[in-house]
């Protein structure tokens, strides 16, 4: 859906100013289409591919990385007992998606709350939807960068711990 939107939007790039009138049109269009199809909550950073085409913002805890530990035995939500857990549904649906199904296994970054009630289609096109917090990095990268610090830190800690005296024995 994104690729199609992207191509369709390409000629109109210069009108797509944030909070502009064109955006308003898109917001309305998105609310109507995605609202009807996916019960879209207009978070402005659509991750339906990674969530079995189930909008994770319907989860009362806004979880974007999988179900909480509170899912009821009948598969319903901890907070809204009459609703099926969004993630039980997302997991089932993802199993039926041959192409994107395993995207549910990816760790998604924190949501950008400033994009609430803006158009995800436009945000995706302009790239703002994909922009992570500046400090957000892959753990692989963290460890490579920090390998030396960790091992020298461990040596210091060994010295610190020589007199470590927890009352528990």
């Amino acid at each position: 859906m994104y690729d199609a939107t992207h191509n369709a939007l390409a000629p109109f790039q210069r009108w797509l100013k944030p909070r502009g009138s064109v955006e308003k049109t898109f917001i309305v269009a998105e609310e109507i289409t995605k609202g009807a199809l996916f019960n879209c909550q207009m978070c402005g950073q659509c991750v339906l591919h990674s969530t079995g085409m189930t909008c994770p913002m319907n989860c009362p805890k806004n979880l974007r990385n999988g179900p909480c530990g509170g899912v009821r035995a009948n598969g319903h939500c901890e907070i809204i007992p009459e609703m099926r857990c969004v993630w039980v549904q997302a997991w089932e649906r993802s199993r039926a998606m041959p192409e994107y199904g395993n995207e549910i296994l990816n760790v998604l970054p924190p949501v950008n709350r400033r994009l609430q009630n803006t158009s995800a289609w436009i945000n995706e096109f302009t790239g703002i939807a994909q922009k992570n917090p500046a400090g957000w990095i892959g753990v692989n990268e963290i460890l490579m960068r920090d390998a030396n610090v960790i091992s020298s830190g461990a040596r210091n800690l060994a010295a610190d711990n020589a007199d470590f005296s927890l009352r528990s024995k």
Partner: protein
Amino acid sequence: MQISRSARNDTTFFVPPPSSNLVSGSRLERVLKAGRFAVTAELNPPDSADPQAVYDRALVLATVCDAINATDASGAHCHMSSVSMCALLTRAGYEPIYQISCRDRNRIAIQGDVLGAAAMGVKNVLCLTGDGVQAGDQPEAKPVFDLDSLTLLRTVRIMRDAGQFLSGRKLDVPPRVFVGAAENPFAPPFDFRPLRLQKKWQAGAEFIQTQYCFDIARLREFMQRVVDLGLHEKLYILVGVGPLRSARVAEWMRTNVPGVHIPDTMVERLRGAENQAREGKKLCIELIQQVREIPGVRGVHVMAYRQEELVAEIIDEAGLLPRVTEKDLARR
């Protein structure tokens, strides 16, 4: 700054530092990395401004476990805050696990508290999503849930390992904490749970404490998948256990406490017992012994709401004492 789609779909795997490398130096980390079976216990915070209430309970637990969990308004009931309990505990020389829930604080507050906790000597943190506000006695409160447990895990790892806030701003001294997460093998969707555990590892978890286990068959199934995925070698998994005081309490817990699943057979066994409390304790000890046999399990986490004495008795009678000494740990 990453702006490609692939950056958003972060699938980077990481190799945890070799076990000889300590990152926090916490007792829990050292016990686990020495290959010893770990025991942690939950300390329920008082509804009091008196520090003695915390010390009294900690004293009972300290000799029977390797680290004490300081809960963060669990069940959405307000008590003394977890960070301040941790401050009291470290001050008295105990080792806390600082539980952080995403329910009440946004990313700005949480990152500040992680720094503050580390400054006060906290060496273990447990990153949780948190129970919904509806579960507590102030359901009118505003739920925050700015981060989720996975983004929280990664945030703490970024602070610790890259020495920066989520914004990229540098820290002068990063918080050296051993990072944990929770998992509930007993809640649906069951076949997603082991993969969700894998996601937690990818997000940065180093140890896991599970929700209450009352269903050993379900736990075995879960752990089998965990071992198949190789996660038992990447994560130190502690299984949550606790005593049930009576069949009535069991019924109440499974309807009212989010995420607690108690099989009917267990409730029936309690109901049929002459002394239900004694039977509940016996059941818990049996469970610990069964849990210890399961490949991939590296410890137990014992919880009993405001019954610290009972927790200590259970750990003793389950044969988990004495705990490994500092001397033993130093010798390896």
